[in-house]
């Protein structure tokens, strides 16, 4: 049973990925894309947001993870989103539902800045 399931999955997965790619590539269905689980991550490491500029499609949920030994925050400069204080390995997620450029910074170490570009 097990091996058969794996075999079926391995056959279906590439097909599904191909279909997803087709859907993503078609602008006409983009607006209905909101419910699809687009995700992206920003890693906080050595007092730097990485990547410093993250470009994602509308509807993407971005998750920040603090990998430092020191707490950080991820706070929108324009008041759009605001994480709680993230201690080591803690995460914060925000779903971007509107296109635009979202600059943010760490309120504890304001030299740390980054932006999310939502297209």
């Amino acid at each position, binding site marked *: 049973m097990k091996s058969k399931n794996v075999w079926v999955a391995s056959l279906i997965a590439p097909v599904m990925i191909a279909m997803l790619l087709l859907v993503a590539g078609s602008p006409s269905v983009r607006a209905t894309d909101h419910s699809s689980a687009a995700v992206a991550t920003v890693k906080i490491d*050595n*007092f*730097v947001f990485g990547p410093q500029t993250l470009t994602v499609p509308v509807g993407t949920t971005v998750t920040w993870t603090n990998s*430092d*030994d*020191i*707490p950080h*925050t991820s706070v929108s*400069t324009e008041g759009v989103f605001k994480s*709680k*204080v993230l*201690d*080591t390995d803690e995460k914060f997620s925000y779903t971007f539902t509107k296109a635009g450029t979202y*600059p*943010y*910074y760490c*309120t*504890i*170490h*304001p*030299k740390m*800045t980054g932006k999310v570009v939502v297209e």
Partner: protein
Amino acid sequence: MPDKKQDLIDQSLQDLNNDGVDRRGFLKCMAWAGTGLVWTMSGGIPVSRAFAKDSKKDAAKGADFSFVQISDSHIGFNKPANPDVTATLQTAINKINAMPHTPDFIIHTGDLSQLSKPSEFDTLDQVLKGASAKDIYFVPGEHDMLSDNGEQYLQRYGKGTKGTGWSSFDHKGVHFVGLVNVANLKAGGMGSLGHEQLEWLEDDLKGQSASTPIVLFAHIPLWTIYPDWGWGTDDSEQALSYVKRFGSVTVLNGHIHQIMQKIEGKVSFHTAMSTAFPQPAPGTAPSAGPMKVPAEQLQQVLGITDVNYVVSGRSLAIVDSPLGASGASASGNGGDVWR
């Protein structure tokens, strides 16, 4: 030993004098960790001498009063750089209690806690309760104002202060001002005092005569040490313009977890060691995160700062002592002279 160390310092000062940095012949930058150094300020002319282990009693002798600065206790931090910051704070307090002279008071220059948690502040209070000096003055670090705009901090440590926790007091002829440069920080910027506090400071200093020694203390350095890591205060120059007319100004800061000194004209800048964990020298690591050192070396890079004031010469002598007892090594930790 003391002679050897004196030679080292003389040489260092000479090097600094010849490097073109000292516009007025007074600008000197030194950082000694793991050893003690006395800076005496007299009429704007800094005099330094090595501070051997057995001369500690002399530092307070003839002084009219002394106080101790501690900084960056980070209670709640528990990572490998120092898994027990409560114990090292306790060691710092024991060191203060063992001084031949009881300091008149203690100044804590911020980052009392790691995450502004009530339990962290409780632990800090418990340890500080055992200090021989009963009066403790605080300014917040950025870690003390994390999630509640500093409400918890202000309730506990900011009684009688203004704004986000700034205040001033007089002690035996010296005017002390505690400033807050960790609140409402702007994206891309460094520490910030803000317009309201600057106005208050200008007004606060107006009533003081130019011969009154001034001590400014704040968490983030009030001089720019390393902008890339945010080690400075964006509007500190304006604050310093208000103290220009005074004959003796001492600026005490924390935040960078290491000793750095600069003497410029009549203003002497000084940063203190942390009681919790060391941080790397500017630009020597990918970031300003905690610096991990072998356990047996930890107490050499943590410490307290003892400040002695002599009324007659209106001078302040600043002595940094590592927590470890055998810290008077001439070679220091390899980062002896800054710049």
